């Protein structure tokens, strides 16, 4: 399934900055970062549950906000971009 994950972690203190870093690192293991706090993720139900549990362990429920949108099938391949944004491929072999 294709997901879009966005987060807003309160960084007004050092603990918040640490949580922000940990959330970002965690998400990097699941998907591709397309904006500073937006990730495109391709995954299955089991991994999604794992991701949710791990985020839940990191964030402060009083101050941080995470939103995950489930896109229609193939939704990540159907993105319109403006500016410097680039369409990233999720289901192709990568040649660098």
């Amino acid at each position: 399934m294709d997901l879009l994950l966005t987060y807003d972690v309160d960084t007004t203190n050092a603990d918040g900055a640490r949580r922000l870093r940990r959330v970002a690192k965690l998400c990097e293991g699941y998907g591709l970062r397309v904006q500073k706090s937006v990730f495109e993720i391709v995954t299955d139900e089991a991994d999604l549950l794992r991701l949710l549990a791990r985020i839940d362990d990191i964030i402060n429920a009083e101050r941080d906000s995470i939103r995950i949108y489930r896109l229609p099938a193939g939704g990540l391949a159907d993105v319109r971009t403006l500016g410097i944004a680039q369409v990233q491929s999720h289901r192709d072999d990568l040649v660098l």
Partner: protein
Amino acid sequence: MSLELLNTLYVQTQGADLRLEEDSVRVRLPEATARRVLPLRRIDAIVVYGHVNLSTELITRCAQDARSITWMSGGGRFLGRLDGAVRGNVLLRQAQHRALADESVSLEIARNVVAGKIRNSRWIILRTARDAAPPAREEMRTVAATLAEKIDTVASAADVDTLRGIEGDSARLHFAAFRHALRPADGIPPFERRVRRPPTDPVNALLSYLYGMVRGMVHGAAEQVGLDPYVGYLHGIRPAKPGLVLDLMEEFRPVLADRLALTLLNRRQLRAEHFEELAGGAVQLTEDGRAVVIREWQEARQQLWEHGLAGRSVPAGLLPVMQARLLARHLRGDLPGYLPWKVTA
């Protein structure tokens, strides 16, 4: 690992640096300011070509997760492979041997290999016939028509020996047409027919050299996918003869090697001074000649070709890997047959 279809990460940029960062791999390419972070979860194999650094943490993590890492030389030769503890392709190799033992299965694979080669040979002949002078053009089109008939006989060939006969006839026809497409520089005698071991004229020397390049690339692909390069279906098994590599390279010969030979000779990038005759009559490329071929070969490896089955374009250097994977999927029973790569462009 995820139920989603996973991807292979190929790194061919020289000087690239790959490190493990939690559950992701961080790729730094020289000259690129931005780093790329890719989730390991979505990658089931990493293949690196030439001078690419992988951190020990990344290598051990891949071993732990049974994610394969394959090291290839910059030119596409197989160097080594890490498979982790639990995998190992014994089942694939077993399937490969079983298919060889089953006459109907191996005949079918050999048929498709031959059909693929003839089809791609026809393509290049028709393609180059457009630029040929009228009498040669007619002859090339006649050959193409005969080759089309040969493809029909492939389907009814009763055994592998018959197939080898059809393959030999088609190759002769192919080179008879190829002769008309060549307009080499002064001092290079016109191409008459394919001569190997040893090649005794410049055009044959060039063809032999390019086939060697294709062979190295295909051998690497077979190893990378975990197939036994020495168990072939059209070429069977013989000591020290990589039968499967010879099978898989057939469909690539006309398009990747013969076509490049045409370009190099017709554009005068290779001239008489790039070849030398050895005592005994064998002809080979000089060191300068080899440098020209290697440079152009590296470029040709990056050229994109349509892959009908994958539905996208693929660099020439990765076509053999895709085909080796298709064969592996057929041998494992996931695909009803082996489908050779068909050039369209």
